[in-house]
């Protein structure tokens, strides 16, 4: 636990370096600038209030992302986004499968622009979008992702695999749509 009489001011030093990335993550979740700002503000206020219970030596970044993500899930848009996700079990799937289509990934990627990837990310269900961003953008380990999302590592792997498969499927759809 953090000693309140000690360097309580370290919250700012610990938390503010994550500010820009947390905002980016919040914007991806909410897909709205104002909602993202509200979400980040609430996250920081909650984290500040709960800082005394933060276990020093544990992962502060994962703790902040967990607060942000849990806060998002309590918002109207978060509840709606989560409710729209398929309830298929994460654990029942094989961790990975070959690419969604016959198209070799390298050929697919050679035709993909950054905007197409962004559009595919936007179209992903939030449950998949968040895990792809935590892994690929934030470069969190599976352990950190598990802590942030509150799921075991096996589930992280299977959900990530399904998310990437869905992402590849969306990219194929978007490219086929664009070439018509």
């Amino acid at each position, binding site marked *: 636990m953090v000693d309140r009489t000690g360097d309580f001011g370290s919250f700012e030093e610990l938390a503010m370096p994550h500010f820009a990335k947390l905002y980016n993550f919040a914007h991806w979740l909410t897909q709205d600038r104002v909602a993202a700002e509200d979400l980040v503000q609430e996250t*920081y206020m909650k984290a500040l209030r709960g800082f005394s219970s933060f276990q020093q030596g544990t992962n502060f970044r994962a703790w902040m992302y967990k607060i942000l993500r849990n806060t998002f899930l309590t918002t109207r848009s978060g509840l709606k986004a989560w409710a729209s996700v398929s309830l298929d079990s994460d654990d029942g799937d094989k961790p990975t499968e070959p690419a969604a289509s016959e198209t070799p990934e390298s050929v697919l990627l050679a035709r993909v622009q950054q905007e197409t990837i962004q559009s595919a990310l936007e179209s992903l269900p939030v449950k998949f979008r968040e895990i792809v961003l935590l892994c690929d953008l934030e470069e969190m*380990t599976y352990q950190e992702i598990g802590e942030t999302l509150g799921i075991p590592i096996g589930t992280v792997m299977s959900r990530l695999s399904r998310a990437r498969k869905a992402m590849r499927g969306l990219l194929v759809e978007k490219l086929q749509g664009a070439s018509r």
Partner: protein
Amino acid sequence: MTCDPWREKLDAYVDGDGSQEDLASLEAHLRTCPSCAADALGRLQMKRMTQAAGARYSPSPQFRLRIEKKIQTRRGPVWGFAWMPRLAAVAVALVLIIASAALWLRHSAREQTLAELLDLHVATMASANPVDVISTDRHTVKPWFQGKLPFTFNLPELQNSSFKLVGGRVMYFKHSPGAQLLFELRNHQLSVFILQDQPGMIPLAIGVTEAREMAFNVETWSESGLRYVVMGDASPSDIHELSELLRVAGRS
């Protein structure tokens, strides 16, 4: 021989996760299997592209400042030597405030207010998604703001006018939420800002004021605790006509 058991480990491989033992055996397989090697390369490329595409949104400096201020306010006084760097930060902040005050004096408060709102208007015009609620129906646009603003307002009936409602969005002015509504008149786009008229927040005259700012025409007035600002590149008479419609709606 099927490569499925190897492919199952490819995500962990490109993510740099998994045991050293697994990674070493997978690497050995990749050296002998062009198909799995191509798959691994594709996944790695996808990861890199997602990483680049994902870094998309940046917070505004004003928002960062707001959060920093909130943290400092909530944290309260801290005793001990930890205050020393903070004292330096306060000193820097003071210097910045004094420098800002000097700059502020160079411009009148009124000009600055209009310039800020004009910036918002121009930024909205330049945006690919200028409004968050897109509708020509005032009965759709007005309810959309419910719960998002600490006040409410009326929108005019535009059926017999040349104006068309495009939509609206929540905006922030001096850390307070307000409504920005977008109207069309022929090829012109006009912004209507509706804000709480808190004392000192919007240093504009109390009565109806017409102004010209950077070749844009502006009309502003205060009514029932709300400040209305209409601006755009349309003529002063067009701006006035829309203002009149809004004033009538505001009184109904």
